[in-house]
């Protein structure tokens, strides 16, 4: 679309429909959740309108700070793991011939479309004692007895990296396909080895998208619920598990709402940084 037209009354009428739907079913519920964080909790799972800071005060409790710290820490770690594998993988992928290129993309997209509950289940089988990795090692005679590697911190980290990996590849993909072969060829004509070219040309050029991809994986894993619930012990629970647990089983909606607002602020902050990085990269290009 080249020139954008001037809107008429009917344009606004058409625009009003989606905006109204998003307002009623997103902005208003969000506002009600914000209000609920100040409400008074009545035992038995209900809450009544009030203006209390109790739920907000609990955000400074030891338990919450530990949970938040753990969630942020493990999400940062998962982001680092993903980028470390996904960046070289995506770079090589974009330089493959069409057939393997499409085949690998389909594999990545299939992994992307797996439900978190399925990813959690598959890793719990793979890391479990009944039919997993250790059974294969026993079968091969490399181990005496099968052991369970989950629930554990490592299992949660692996699960989070697994669900985030496809997203990470897809974030890196558009810019890496635009990285022209001429750039790397120029470096090699000047005598750089492919390895050196990768480190001194490809990685530095891609620094903004590496950072953006890392932060997006961070926000994405921050929202994961089932991985920590299936593969971790309660001490490995993330904020999302904690929030839904408070909202459903503990029936403390005001506290859940206060934590959800905190999670929103944290995510918006990170998304804001990503947008800033991307707009700066675009203005440089």
């Amino acid at each position, binding site marked *: *679309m080249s020139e954008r037209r001037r809107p008429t009354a009917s344009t606004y009428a058409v625009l009003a429909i989606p905006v109204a739907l998003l307002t009623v079913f997103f902005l208003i519920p969000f506002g009600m959740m914000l209000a609920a964080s100040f409400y008074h909790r009545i035992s038995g799972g209900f809450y009544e309108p009030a203006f209390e800071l109790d739920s907000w005060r609990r955000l400074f409790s030891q338990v919450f700070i530990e949970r938040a710290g753990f969630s942020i820490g493990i999400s940062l770690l998962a982001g680092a793991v993903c980028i470390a594998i996904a960046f070289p993988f995506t770079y090589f992928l974009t330089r493959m011939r069409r057939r393997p290129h499409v085949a690998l993309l389909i594999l990545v997209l299939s992994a992307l479309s797996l439900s978190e509950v399925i990813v959690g289940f598959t890793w719990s089988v793979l890391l479990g004692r009944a039919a997993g990795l250790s059974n294969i090692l026993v079968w091969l005679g490399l181990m005496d007895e099968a052991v369970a590697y989950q629930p554990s911190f490592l299992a949660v980290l692996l699960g989070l990296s697994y669900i985030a990996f496809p997203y990470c590849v897809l974030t890196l993909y558009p810019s890496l396909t635009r990285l022209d072969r001429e750039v790397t060829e120029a470096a090699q004509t000047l005598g750089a080895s492919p390895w050196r070219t990768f480190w001194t040309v490809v990685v530095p050029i891609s620094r903004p998208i590496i950072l953006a991809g890392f932060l997006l994986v961070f926000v994405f894993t921050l929202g994961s619920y089932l991985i920590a619930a299936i593969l971790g012990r309660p001490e490995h629970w993330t904020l999302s598990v904690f929030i839904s647990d408070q909202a459903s089983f503990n029936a403390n909606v005001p506290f859940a709402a206060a934590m959800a607002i905190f999670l929103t602020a944290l995510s918006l902050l990170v998304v804001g940084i990503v947008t800033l990085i991307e707009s700066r990269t675009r203005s440089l290009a």
Partner: protein
Amino acid sequence: MRALKWSVTAFTIVFLVAPLLVVAVVSINENRYMDFPPEGFSIAWYSALWTDPAWRSAIVRSLVIAAASAAFATAVATPLAYVLRAYRIRLSPLLFSLGIIPFMLPPVITALGMQVFWNATGHVGRIENVIIAHGIFFSTLPLIAIALAMETMDPSLREAAQTLGANPRTTFRTVTFPLLVPSMITGYAAAFVLSLNEYIISFLVAGFSVETLPIKIFNSLRYGFTPTIASVTIVFIVVAATVFTFSALFGNLLRFLGADPATLERNQA
């Protein structure tokens, strides 16, 4: 470098495929329990998906929710993407991000917001609550797909229609809209697949009365393992891979994912 290329690629394939392979083996195990190496071969767990009424109704329910919410998502996204890209609207970036933000935030936020919202209306535990929640949350996917199509559409097509005497309405109906249909389908498909797999929103909105497939899987995991879980996993993967293979063969998958066709061509040479 070649060694690095192959080891990274091989490692990624193993990482992505290994858990699925283990589950595939478990799903054909004859025995009720997980065993390795598997004993016997049986496809009983696959047929149980359809013969067991509890599993069948969860599958059907999830398919209904996915089909309806993806339609809702596309219906919200299409006018928004079209108007914001075709017209000069004040606050355009703000309105566009209104459609992006639900999906950018962790799903638990939409989930809790919707729970509070439906509790206040008293209309609780209904399937339509889940459909609306998914429709809003996943509307971002068709929104991005359609906005992208609007941005890359050749303006001369529309100009040609107008030169030949078509009024704006006819131009939209006969030129712009048909060109948007492929992106609407791509966006619909993406919303459909993700809705089918979504857990936390369905759970907090109506988890105790509307048992979707992911909720059913999670509940059965809690009460111990049944091989049916393994077989449903494999069915899901096959369905997803088929959908994406078709969109790679018949649609422009690489373009949708953001590849630049010209550079891609040169780099693959």
